[in-house]
C-alpha cells in the first residue's frame, strides 16, 4: 500500500478515526508521518491532515475584490468567510446578516436565541411581567417533573419578590 500523501513510499503508519459517524482511514509512509507530526496517535487530527488546515493568520491580507461584500469593522470579505467558515468579528453578524438565517437554519434547531442573556442586557421589564414569566416557567418545570429547575426558579421568584417589596 502506498502512502496517501506522497503516493511514493510504502505506507507504514495506518490510522483510523471516527469523525461524526464516519470512519476515516489514512495510510502514511514514515517520512510523511514524521513531517505531519503524526507520532502520537492522540496528538493530531485526520481532518486537519486531509483538509490541510493551518491556522496562520498572516499580517497582510489579500484585498477583497471591488464590489464584494465586506465587514466594515474588520475587513473580512464574503470570500474569506467562505474559505474559513469563520467570521472575523462580532459585527460580521450584521454585515453578512442577509443570508444568515438561511445558513443558521441548516445548522441549528432554530434561528433565534432562547438561552441565557447577560444580566446587563436583560430587558428591564417591570417586576410584575418578570414574575409572570418566571411563574410560567415554574409551572412548565413542574409539569415536566424537572424539580431541580423548579427549585431554582422558585428561588429566583422569591428573590424578585423581595426586591419588589423593599424592607420597610
Amino acid at each position, binding site marked *: 500500500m502506498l502512502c496517501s500523501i506522497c503516493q511514493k513510499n510504502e505506507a507504514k503508519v495506518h490510522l483510523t478515526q471516527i469523525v461524526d459517524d464516519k470512519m476515516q482511514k489514512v495510510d502514511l509512509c514514515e517520512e510523511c508521518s514524521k513531517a505531519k507530526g503524526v507520532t502520537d496517535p492522540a496528538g493530531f487530527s485526520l481532518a486537519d491532515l486531509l483538509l490541510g488546515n493551518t491556522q496562520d493568520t498572516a499580517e497582510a491580507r489579500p484585498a477583497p475584490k471591488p464590489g464584494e461584500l465586506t465587514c466594515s469593522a474588520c475587513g473580512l470579505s464574503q470570500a474569506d468567510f467562505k474559505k474559513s467558515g*469563520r*467570521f472575523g468579528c462580532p459585527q460580521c453578524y450584521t454585515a453578512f446578516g442577509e443570508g*444568515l438565517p438561511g445558513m*443558521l437554519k441548516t445548522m441549528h434547531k432554530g434561528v433565534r436565541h432562547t438561552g*441565557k442573556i447577560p444580566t446587563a442586557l436583560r430587558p428591564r421589564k417591570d417586576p410584575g411581567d418578570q414574575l409572570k414569566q418566571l411563574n410560567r416557567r415554574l409551572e412548565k418545570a413542574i409539569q415536566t417533573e424537572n424539580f431541580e429547575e423548579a427549585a431554582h426558579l422558585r428561588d429566583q421568584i422569591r428573590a424578585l419578590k423581595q426586591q419588589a417589596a423593599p424592607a420597610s
Partner: protein
Amino acid sequence: MSRDLQTFLSKPADAARRTGPLDHIVLSSRVRLARNVQGFAFPGWAKKSERIRALEVIRSAVDHLPAMTEGFSESMDNLTGIDKQILVERHLISREHAAKGAGSGMVVDRAETLSVMVNEEDHLRMQSLRPGLQLKEAWRAIDELDTALETRLPFAFSPEYGYLTACPTNVGTGIRVSAMLHLPGLVLAELVNQIIQSVNKLGLAVRGLYGEGTEALGNIFQVSNQMTLGETEVEIVERLSKVVHQMIEHELNARQKLLEEKPKVLHNHIGRAFGVLSNAYSISSKEAMNLLSLVRLGHDLNMFPGVPRAVFDELQLITQPAHLQRVHAGKLGAEERDVLRSDLLRERLKDVARPVAAQLTPPASDASRPSGAE
C-alpha cells in the same frame, strides 16, 4: 498564582482517584461555553498585536475571578510542548489550543474543574469538567463563572442570535455539553456503530477521546450536542443526559449479553489484554490504551477482586506520551517511550493477580438505573 504547571497539577494517582456518579462507564462530564468580547476581532482573524492586547485584557479579568484564586494562569508561549500535551491529556485544554503560542493563554482553577482557554477559536472557551455523570452540576458551575465574568468583560451578544462566535455553528448559547463514555461492551458486541448512528440522528455528535477529529482510542467515546441555537442551555443539558443514560443502559446490556452468550470470547479478550500489559517489553500508547480499556472492563466485571480501579485509571493516564515523558526528563523517541511504558506497566501490574471468572453484578446502590435526577 502558581508559576509551575507540573507542581500545580495534581499527581496522576490523585487525579485517578476522583470519583463521580456512574463513573464505571461515564469517565467525565464537561460543559464548555464560547464567548467573545466586544471591540476585538475574533482570534483567527485578528492581527497578532490585536490578539496580544485581547489576551491581556481577558486574562486579567479571568485571573481576578474569585473562582480562580490560587489557580494557574499562563500565556501559551511560556509553556513547554510537554506541559501543553499534559494539559491535553488531562482534558484541560484542546489539542487546537496546545498548538497556540504568543497571543493565547489558559487559566485553570485550583481544583482543576474549571478551565479557561483565551484566544482559542473564540476569545474565551471556558469549561467545567467533572468526574462521572454530572452534566447539570457542570452546567451550573460554568454558568456561575460566566455570570461572574460578564460584569468584567463586555461579551459580544445579539438579542436575536445570542452569544456571537467565530464559527456560526457555535452561535447562540455557545454551549457544548459532552460526556466521555467507556463503551467496550458495545465495541466487542459490534453494536457501537449502530448506537453512534442513532445518537447522530438525535442531532448529537460522537467523537473520539480528544474531541473533534480524534480516534476512538481505548473504546472511549465523547457524546456532545452540535446545535447551539434555538434551544436553552438547560434543554440541551437534559437531552444529552437522557441520551447518556440510554447509552449506559445499552452498554450494560451488551456486557450482560456477552457474558451470557460469549463468555469465552470475553474472558479471552480480557485475559490476553492483562497478559500483554503485564509481560510486554515494548508497547505503544495506542495498544496500551486499548488493552487497558479491556482490563478496566474486566475490573467492572469483578475479574480483579480487591484491586482498586484507580490502579488501572492511573495507568491509563501515566502511560500517555506526555505524562510518560515528564517522569523522564528530556525528549524521548517513540521507541524509547514504548520500552519505558512497558517497564512501567510490568512494574505496576506485578502484584495484580491474573483475572478470575467474570460476574456481572450491578454497581453499588443500583446507580445504573436512569432516574429523574441525574
